[in-house]
């Protein structure tokens, strides 16, 4: 080994030892330093300007109600369209002929009472949700009126009468709901 190599080797050795010493000192370094004053009061004052945003609950219920009702109404409407295209409707026989007026009076009595109850029960819901529910009720009502006019024109069509009964059941089912209990709209 030449003299130059010996010097280099010795220098490397010293550097290595120094690095180890530095690493040892670093490990001994205290990771914490206590502040000279309590910072909390000032932090608390700073925090007071900001309020953590509350996590918005997912308001999925109105949308699912609206979606399911829309699907039901669409199915009913498409059935009506299909029936209009049919050349030979299924007819009700003899004494079973449907009396729309009689049925309508009975139905509207029940329906209107339930609607009043529905509005009363759910009046504490947020305005947007109430609007959404009212919109769904309106969709069903429009569909019912449409089918009623079809039944009036074809009082012996059993399929139209069946559709009307189905939409009555759906409307009643919706109006019986008490969404205020679920707490999901709040």
């Amino acid at each position: 080994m030449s003299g130059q190599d010996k010097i280099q080797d010795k220098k490397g050795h010293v550097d290595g030892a120094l690095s180890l010493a530095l690493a040892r000192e670093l490990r001994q370094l205290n990771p914490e330093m206590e502040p000279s004053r309590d910072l909390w009061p000032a932090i608390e004052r700073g925090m007071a300007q900001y309020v953590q945003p509350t996590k918005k609950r997912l308001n999925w219920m109105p949308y699912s109600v609206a979606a399911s009702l829309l699907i039901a109404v669409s199915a009913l409407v498409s059935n009506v369209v299909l029936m209009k295209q049919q050349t030979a409707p299924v007819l009700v026989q003899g004494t079973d002929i449907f009396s729309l007026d009689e049925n309508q009076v009975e139905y509207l009595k029940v329906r209107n009472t339930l609607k009043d109850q529905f509005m009363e029960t759910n009046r504490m819901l947020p305005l947007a949700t109430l609007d959404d529910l009212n919109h769904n009720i309106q969709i069903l009502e429009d569909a019912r009126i449409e089918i009623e006019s079809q039944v009036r024109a074809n009082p012996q069509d059993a399929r139209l009468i069946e559709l009307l009964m189905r939409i009555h059941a759906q409307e009643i089912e919706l109006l019986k709901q008490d969404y205020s209990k679920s707490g999901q709209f709040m």
Partner: protein
Amino acid sequence: MSEASVVLGAKARERALVDRAKKNDYNAYEQLYRLHVGCVVALCVRLCKDRDIAEDLAQEAFILAWVKLHSFRGDSAFGSWLYRIATNTALSYLRKQKPFQNSIDIDDTAEESLPDGIAEKMDLEEAIAQLPDGARAVFVLYSLQGYTHDEIAKLLGIAQGSSKAQLHRARKLLRGYINA
């Protein structure tokens, strides 16, 4: 109770405190502050040298963390997230004072030593404080906070090579202190 279960218990407690703080619970956030203030102050002191300024920066970091708390998803430990905020707060302060150089002129063959008057062996803490700003920031972030050169380069707005060179420079200066 094993050490692992103690650590897990502490993490669970901290997570519970974070959850409570997210619901505007000041008491929970104060407990988080008490848990981490020492490390946050140490980080700020080492980055900016001045104790009073460091405490102001630590204070600012805790307020900023409160403001951003809703965005903390818990992917990392709360402490790591908080130290990152404190690091950014301190670096932003330093940047306002004097932008970090994108390239550094260091002649590795040149003899560089600690500034005059500190040739004697001193406390490592003091020696770190005596390092030039760029070298100190890289050394603290790399050797004490565990950042990578890539992360440091992004944080300081310098090239990765500069970060490595600054670290080399800092170690060389600190070895000088040990050798004194």
